[in-house]
């Protein structure tokens, strides 16, 4: 089924997927579609991001002050353990060996015990989430650019590792042969800044740095003469597609 042609259903399925209530076969089918269709994938990411903010909206409750003390102790222990590991891995370095703070046997014993505890905790607590955080795909910004009728026409993703913007055409729009589409960053209170000119192919890549996208709330695509216009001039043709630039969560 071409879900992208049913925007309301697509949004509802994406929202239910992000909420976690879409389960079983329905969830698997939706995820399969998301892998196949960029527009479905974009919508799923958007809703994951939106609902993540549910974690920001709970009423605050003050924790017991002892919690901070425990955290502080565990962090101290971990730092001492790391210092010890560094010392061991660099035996040639004439570190502050004799006497003093570093020489205190009691401290080393304490640090070793605390370090062992912290290691156990790190394995139990840290492994899963850290793994998740590390392996998270390096897609950090997502934008779905739509036309006036809210039909998605372009999926934009940014990979900071490769400093690359990827644009995928998801709508049917094709510019005339003597025209080019040009991508613009729309910084708040500033003039539009060109991010590059699009070729005719289905998916294309533009070089970009994170700083070019930081604090940019929206992107737009205008129709320009073939080859585009200089950035300083700003868009000269009509803006065909635009949409918010969204920072992707975890």
């Amino acid at each position, binding site marked *: 089924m071409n879900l992208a042609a049913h925007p309301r259903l697509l949004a509802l399925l994406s929202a239910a997927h992000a*909420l976690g209530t879409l389960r079983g076969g329905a969830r698997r089918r939706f995820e399969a579609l998301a892998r196949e269709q960029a527009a479905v994938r974009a919508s799923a990411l958007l809703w994951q991001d939106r609902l993540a903010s549910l974690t920001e909206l709970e009423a605050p409750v003050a924790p017991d002050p002892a919690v901070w003390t425990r955290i502080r102790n565990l962090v101290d222990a971990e730092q001492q353990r790391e210092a010890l590991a560094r010392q061991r891995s660099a035996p040639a370095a004439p570190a502050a060996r004799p006497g003093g703070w570093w020489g205190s046997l009691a401290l080393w014993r304490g640090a070793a015990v605390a370090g062992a505890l912290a290691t156990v905790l790190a394995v139990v607590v840290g492994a899963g989430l850290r793994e998740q955080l590390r392996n998270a795909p390096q897609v950090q910004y997502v934008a779905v650019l739509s036309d006036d009728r809210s039909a998605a026409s372009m999926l934009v993703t940014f990979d900071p590792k490769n400093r690359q913007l990827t644009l995928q055409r998801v709508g049917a729009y094709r510019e005339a042969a003597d025209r080019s589409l040009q991508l613009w960053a729309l910084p708040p209170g500033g003039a539009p800044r060109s991010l590059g000119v699009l070729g005719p192919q289905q998916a294309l890549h533009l070089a970009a740095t994170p700083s070019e996208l930081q604090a940019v709330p929206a992107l737009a695509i205008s129709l320009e003469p073939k080859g585009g216009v200089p950035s300083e001039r700003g868009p000269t043709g009509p803006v065909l597609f635009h949409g918010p630039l969204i920072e992707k969560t975890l």
Partner: protein
Amino acid sequence: MPLSSPDAELTALLDRVGQRDTHALQQLYERTSSRLFGLAMRIVRQREVAEDVLQEAFLTIWRSAPDYRASLSPPLAWLGLIVRSRSLDQLRRQTADRAALTQEFDEVLADTLPADTPGPMDLADASEQAWALHQCLEQLERKQREVLSLAYLRELSHGELAEQLKLPLGTVKTWIRRGLDKLRGCMERLA
């Protein structure tokens, strides 16, 4: 984004935590621990368990802060996701124990409702994205709002929600469907 925005301040703190600055960790804790503890309490519902969650979460934050920039999420949402993940770990451990669970079911919807809906003052450090979500949630009926946030925060299925809230399955499904549909309409108008 102006440098003085809460997002920018929290991001700067996270950067310093990523550089092993324990003073910054303390500042971050002072600034966010109540909000994050409220979140943990909402999910695990027992004070002691929520304190364990907060402790584990801050150790995770200490270790993972260098990865924060790569996530490019609003800082409070990133912290919130860590707390939610740790909270769900705790819930799974308890489910494995089976002990606390049946007793929990006695507490019905009323228990899960916070005394007050967070007002504007309460959301001082929330991201802009959270503000938009908050505005849209405000337009839902309270029960729809609650059931949505419980489903997300506790990762509950329709059936589990019906069981925990002592509501008919059909009612839960309807509230969620209507709630999501209204949320969709509102978020798309704001976007």
